[in-house]
């Protein structure tokens, strides 16, 4: 799966190619990490990372970039996943919406009901679970 983030105004970018098969948890993490890396480059953001909500706990999934030690802006992406954006104050509202729309689209693809339970997001700790197909 590949993504293109467009830094200019315009309709949100989406995947260039839809997946042929249902993805695994590993693939989800890779896709998120790649999306974070591309978004950091496209928008000049130092760090983007993702976490899964478990009650009050936001459990780190993956991310990309250099820590800024500044407060992050966090936004829900659906399916219990949140994105944290550090150092993105310079982004315009349109750019932020575009980024979030693309990330939500990504999460939606990897976490459709056909994937079964949210085990897709249980890629945590030392063990990873396959999506329950």
């Amino acid at each position, binding site marked *: 799966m590949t993504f293109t983030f467009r830094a200019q105004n315009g309709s949100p970018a989406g995947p260039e190619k839809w997946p042929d098969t249902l993805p695994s948890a590993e693939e989800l993490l890779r896709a998120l990490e790649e999306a974070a890396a591309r978004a950091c480059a496209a928008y000049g953001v130092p760090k983007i990372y993702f976490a899964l909500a478990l009650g009050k*706990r936001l459990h780190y999934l993956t991310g990309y970039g250099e820590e800024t030690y500044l407060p992050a802006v966090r936004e829900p992406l659906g399916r219990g996943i949140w994105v944290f954006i550090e150092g993105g104050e310079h982004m315009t509202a349109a750019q932020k919406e575009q980024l979030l729309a693309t990330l939500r689209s990504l999460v939606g693809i990897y976490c459709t009901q056909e994937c079964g339970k949210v085990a897709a997001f249980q890629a*945590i700790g030392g063990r990873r679970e396959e999506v329950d197909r």
Partner: protein
Amino acid sequence: MLSPEEQAWREQRMAVIREYEERELRADFINDAEIWRILESKAHPARAEVEEVLAKARELKGLTPEEAAVLINCRDPELLEEIFATARWIKEQVYGNRIVLFAPLYISSPCVNNCAYCGFRHTNDAVTKRTLSMDELEDEVKVLTSKGHKRLIVVYGEHPVSDIDFMCRTIEKIYQTRNGRGEIRRVNVNAPPLTVEEYRQLKEVGIGTFQVFQETYHHATYRKMHPANTPKGSYRWRLFALHRAQEAGIDDVAIGALFGLYDWRFEVLGLICHAMDLEREFGVGPHTISFPRLEPALNTPLTTNSPYLVNDEDFKKIIAILRCAVPYTGLILTCRERPELRREAIRLGVSQTDAGSRIAVGGYAEMEREHILDRQQFQLGDTRSLDEFIYELCQDGYIPSFCTAGYRAGRTGCHFISFAKKGLVKNFCTPNAVLTFKEYLMDYASPATREVGERVIDRYVEEFARQMPRRAEALKGMLARLEGGERDLYF
């Protein structure tokens, strides 16, 4: 005596444990003979050797068991002061000068185990065992939040009334309980070892840290303290409790030993080996280490008769050595200790402590009673209020913290360690301490504590502005928002 139902539950639990023991392929990483060999090989360390170990500790890379043994066996008073100074320095480098505050909440004391040192052991009829109802739990939480607490460690016995479903319900209840501006933002759990599936269930409610103390790493002592026909009788089941938690995706785990059951020198190396094995397998060691000392408990002679009781000087050594050995692991000191010793011990690398604690089940509802010995697991040494303790911390130059930002901002497990090991976690810890302490001062502090606390905050903000001006501006902005009525702001 256990009822037939309790016995049946215990048997069921032990069947699960036996089945686990047959399947568990992990090797027991505590080799008693090897630990003693290491201790004996470093029995009389030369000055140069101690100084070399301390130099390595200051590199913030931790210590091996052999290196820790050098410090353990050091008896030179001058060198001991250097060990203490090194521990202080390490803590300030990694965490800054903040002390995180929490409260214990004993939810359920019935237990099917019969541990020789525990006031709650099932044959100890001198102590009344009870379990909080949901209404009583809510009342306890409201008392705690009315004092300003934001972080709890909840404690359960091993018993059918406090099974995994009960634990999950009570934790959810705690998170749901509101009291004006008061709320609990992080619940850590001290509970019996669970199966992987049970850990997964617990993870879903969003806990902070899961804590299991091995009590003693010495195999023969473990057998002596924990009858074989009880769930706690299985050394391996307990030793790998946190490995199983990690398997289930709980990546903030906590270990501890109960000092006084066996030789403290052995237990320190046991803790270090445990931390190393977690890091080896999962890439991240324990989030915290606790080192409670045996304290008197009603009708429990071992707590005062043990030949291994730890004196104050050795206790201080334990803290300082652990700080040197595991620089990125939180160290928890509790209200078991007397106020004057806590004041000294905190200076040796402690990062977290409780205050204003009551450890009887339902004890916060009767806050004015410092001790309810027939409902407590043991006796506390420090029963001062949270506010009194905070006042003292401020006088000693610390910044009290109620921070719960890490686990709510995805800074968990390996992600946390990735910048902790660069010695930079204090870049979050310090501003978050300032923000949470400001909330405390505005909403809960006595006038005297507010006055001294505001001076502490001013000092920290000034220092932060010198070191990190951009972040200091963000911090000042958030402080202004707190003064404007917002709450729960964090980096």
